[in-house]
């Protein structure tokens, strides 16, 4: 099951929807892992979409590549990781014109980083469609050392850069494509509660 109902939270926390076909001269899809299911769904709603589509897919070990290729998008790329693909994503935005529709699907980390690229290219964030699928792990910024820790699944967690014990906030920055992590034992050094799942 790749869908997850996130609990209602504060207003800075991203809310994800369901991809729907929209009018536009070109369509750019960026997805990772189970995000492919969302592309398959929306392509089923409007079968003409793929003729003008550029699909960038990062399988991360999931086997949706053949199904996506079978949709016959105008352009298809499969990449081994986000960092390996980011230059290609930037080129896609640099070449794009007004009217481009952007569809992002998969993990929060992928959606957030791709959304950030789209915004830097001049697309308002509200015009970018997103659908969460798959892992609920978070991309966290340590507010102290500014380092990003990827794929955080527990609260608290240890910053991969400075080693502080951080608690996981729902406060989210689109500019950093990350949630905020704050030192949990600042007022009582060493008193770190046992880690549990973020949504437990």
């Amino acid at each position: 099951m790749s869908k997850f109902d996130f609990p209602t939270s504060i207003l800075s926390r991203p809310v994800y929807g369901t991809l729907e076909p929209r009018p536009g001269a070109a369509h750019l899809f960026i997805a990772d892992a189970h995000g492919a299911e969302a592309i398959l769904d929306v392509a089923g709603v409007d079968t003409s979409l793929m003729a003008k589509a550029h699909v960038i897919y990062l399988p991360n070990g999931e086997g949706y590549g053949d199904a996506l290729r079978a949709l016959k998008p105008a352009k298809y790329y499969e990449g081994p990781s986000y960092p390996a693909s980011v230059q290609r994503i930037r080129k896609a935005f640099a070449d794009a014109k007004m009217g481009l529709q952007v569809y992002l699907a998969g993990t929060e980390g992928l959606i957030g980083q791709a959304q950030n690229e789209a915004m830097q290219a001049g697309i308002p964030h509200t015009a970018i469609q997103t659908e969460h699928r798959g892992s609920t792990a978070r991309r966290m910024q340590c507010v102290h050392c500014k380092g990003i820790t990827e794929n955080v699944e527990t609260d608290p967690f240890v910053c991969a850069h400075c080693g502080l014990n951080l608690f996981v906030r729902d406060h989210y920055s689109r500019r950093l494509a990350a949630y905020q992590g704050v030192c949990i034992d600042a007022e009582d050094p060493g008193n770190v509660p046992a880690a549990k799942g973020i949504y437990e």
Partner: protein
Amino acid sequence: MTIQFNDETFRDDYSFYNSDRAIKRFPFPFHEDSYMYSVNMEQHRGGPVDSIYEKRFDVDEHYLSEMRDRAMVLADDPLRCQSLPHMTLAGWDLLELIMVSKSEDYPDLFELHRDGNKWRWINKPMGIDDTFTFLDEATLPYGPMEYITRQAQGDFAVLDQRDDNLWMDAGMITTQADWSLDFDLGMNFFEWHAPVPLAHEKGIFIRALKFLLNIQQGAPARRLNWTMTVNPLLDTSPENYHKWGVQKTEIAPENLGSKQHLRVELQTFFRLPRSNALVFPIRCYLCSFQDLMTVPKWGRRLHRVIRDLPEELATYKGFIDNRPMMLDYLSKFDDGQPTSDGIWPDLETEPALKK
């Protein structure tokens, strides 16, 4: 009047102090014996003589020391001052607003001489005498916002206005009540206020935003906000929370009066003309409990406000653990007598504490 500037620190040995004059003009934020959020806005057009409301940008005895502290914060962490590329024009607007206001309101301290775009700015307390070309960044040592806010007390959030919202797209934030400019940069009004409890449910931010979007040129507004800080620490940043957080646990009954500070923000709002942005100066004033208690009205009222504050607010403002100890201290200054309306000390008319 001539201001005698204090030589003091807001870190390490905490030599910060308020003179009698500074205590008397402290912006006590409670106009009645209880507190709840409200959109408590009013026009910012002067106020009682020598009050913090009198001038557009208040300059007080802490000026030079606060500017020294800001320079130290920026040397450690330059990300406390950021401006997205489209906000440069708003930075020039802010530079003009502060230079014009200060040179008109404090002619003995600041001078501005303009000949077309050729400007000369003299800041006597800081020993600055710079000539530059208005709207030409190359003629200043920093960007316009950073240049002028290194010379102005308080934090400055510069908000872009578009799509019926305000966007935190630039700022100089070194005396903040535990929020990070680097993290909140680029957020809209509802997003950067997202962590605040209770106020969203009460519709406070919807009404506040509507008010702020309609602030017009020549008609600035203001309000007070408050929190608590242990030690006179200006830079209570989330960035350094792992360093200063532990100070909250150093409060004890015998040092609470001198260590526990009421932290008040005078928030003002000005429409910026060329950019149509809004600048939101957040000026922080600190006062120790023992200094506040020299004003009988404030002693009575602070006790009642802190005692009756909802738990969520005490938690959000970061003093829920210390509240019982604070109340032990404050109760000694509350003799149950009624208090007069409004924030002013009313020293002549309010009764002395009944022992």
